[in-house]
């Protein structure tokens, strides 16, 4: 017989017909080694409580429907083994909750429509470039491997919403598109068959591209190992190239870039004024004063690093890499 452990699944329950707010219900069940969270949910539904509501279709980490929070971290239920989670947290209680940043419909099912609406708005489809895509189907429209390499990873997105559900920028900023949405914009911005190409960074810019805080959680948690934050970074570079620089984030990046590429080191003292102008200096005044009192004011002039010439050569040659 397979090894088994008694585990408490502490599941968030919510039925809008009766409940004012969600509450937890414990189910203690035998979990054989290798059992996934989704299998355990089906077991409960079939044997203990048929009213338990959750989503799950493919059971193979490909449809993206089954994501839930397991002990606070969003994951695909069909890909997550209960034993591994128990070991990770050193407990026999697993909390299963619906995804964050979305409205709960019932139990573990959430309303995906806001994320979906945002996706629709960012034009997540190929707009053919007539110069590249032939008029008839007789000819192929070729994408070369080196071209594909740049956005290949981003075509793996299964729209599971895992990244969206815990993104702090989504949580705090209404107009923020979201990690997978930026991933989708980037995917087409790099596609040589697309008519908009880098122009797409303007769409990203309009959806608060500079509000990502680079917490790297989307990169860490994505079940398909896509790093949405990388899309954000690349779209930022493209938007700067397209001249969209009237934003403290972009100005900060440019100031940083200039400072580092000229001396090899960052000049911390000039960043506030370069990024936000006088407003930046005023905002930063109390902190600057506290540094002054502690005798640790960053110097206004930075001494270049040794071998600055070699460094500059690396910078200018790398800038040419495509």
């Amino acid at each position, binding site marked *: 017989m397979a090894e088994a452990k008694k585990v408490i699944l502490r599941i968030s329950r919510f039925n809008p017909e009766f409940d004012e707010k969600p509450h937890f219900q414990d189910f203690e069940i035998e979990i054989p080694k290798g059992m996934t969270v989704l299998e355990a949910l089906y077991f409960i539904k079939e044997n203990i409580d048929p009213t338990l509501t959750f989503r799950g279709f493919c059971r193979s980490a490909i449809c993206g429907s089954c994501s839930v929070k397991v002990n*606070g*971290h969003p994951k695909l239920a069909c890909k997550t083994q209960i034993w591994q989670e128990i070991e*990770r947290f050193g407990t026999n209680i697993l909390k299963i909750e619906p995804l964050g940043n979305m409205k709960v419909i019932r139990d573990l099912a959430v309303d995906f429509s806001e994320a979906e609406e945002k996706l629709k708005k960012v034009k997540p489809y190929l707009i053919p470039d007539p110069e590249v895509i032939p008029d008839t189907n007789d000819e192929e429209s070729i994408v070369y491997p080196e071209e594909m390499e740049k956005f290949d990873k981003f075509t793996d997105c299964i729209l599971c919403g895992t990244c969206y559900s815990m993104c*702090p*920028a989504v949580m*705090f*900023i209404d107009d923020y598109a979201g990690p997978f949405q930026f991933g989708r914009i980037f995917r087409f911005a790099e596609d040589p068959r697309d008519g908009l190409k880098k122009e797409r960074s303007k769409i990203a810019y309009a959806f608060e591209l500079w*509000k990502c*805080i*680079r*917490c*790297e959680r989307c*990169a*860490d948690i994505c079940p398909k190992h896509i*790093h949405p934050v990388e899309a954000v*970074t*690349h779209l*930022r*570079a493209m938007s*700067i190239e397209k001249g969209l620089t009237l*934003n*403290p*984030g*972009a*100005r*900060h*990046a*440019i100031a*940083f*870039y200039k400072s*580092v*590429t000229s001396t*090899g*080191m*960052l000049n*911390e003292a000039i*960043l506030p004024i370069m990024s*936000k102008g006088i407003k*930046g200096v005023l*905002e930063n005044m*109390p*902190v600057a004063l*506290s*540094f002054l009192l*502690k005798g*640790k004011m*960053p*110097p206004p002039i930075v001494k270049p*690093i*040794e*071998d600055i010439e*070699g*460094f500059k*050569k*690396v*910078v200018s*040659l*790398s*800038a040419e*890499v495509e």
Partner: protein
Amino acid sequence: MKKYAFYPGCAPKGAAIESYISAKTVMDKLGIDYTEPVSFSCCGAGNVEEVKPYVALGINARNLAIAEKEERDIITICSTCYLELKKAKKQLTENERLKEEMNEILSETGLRYEGKVEVKLLHQVILDEYEEKISSMVTNKLKNLKVYPFYGCHTIRPRDIIGYDDPENPSSLERLIKLLGATPVSGARRILCCGFHASFSASEIAMKLTGLNLKEAHDMDADCVITPCPLCHLNMDANQKKALNTIKSQFIMPVLHVQQLIGLAIGLSPEEVALQKNVIPALYIV
């Protein structure tokens, strides 16, 4: 014991000078074999990438190659430098074509990157190699201290680049705190973001996140917070008042760089770890 090239990063050379001072006194006291190559450049902190992605890769390939030339691994005290260096390393490992292209560029300056150099944070080196030595040096001074370990994003995420500790339930700082004779108090927010990298583009969110993180430490009755990241430190220490204002809270929470706590535990004086340079008063905890 391994040999290291010390990569302090920009903040520890400027606004977070106390992290640089304390790192050096701690490394000296422990006898860590390190040099500080003067040709290391800034890692770009993710910002250079936002202007020209391949320039960020180029300058970090160069930094890695400098350490490789000295036949040393890199030891750093900034989580963002840690991520940037490791990110470059991963890109170069996974893409042979890019690695060759970068090597062609580096060869113009007499450098070459093979992929031998490891990148580690100071506390990681200490836990991996100096655990025994530290425990023999601990003075019992921190016996009654409750410490909240704040990891900082780039110390633990993304797992396929960092590959040290569990980003969902990390334990290295807790292990370190216990080793130093203090008591860890761990809250769920210890793995969340302080918002530093949005300081200019979304400052209100950054301050709110920092405030909430500090508040958790306060609510859990911590005497102080420690962090391996000088950027998280900046938000939690120098910006503490502003951060707490955004969540309508007022209290004082000392925030120490990991190496300041290590130094205090192994008998260095508060001055030797430059505790007087922390903005929020911290001297009173010892």
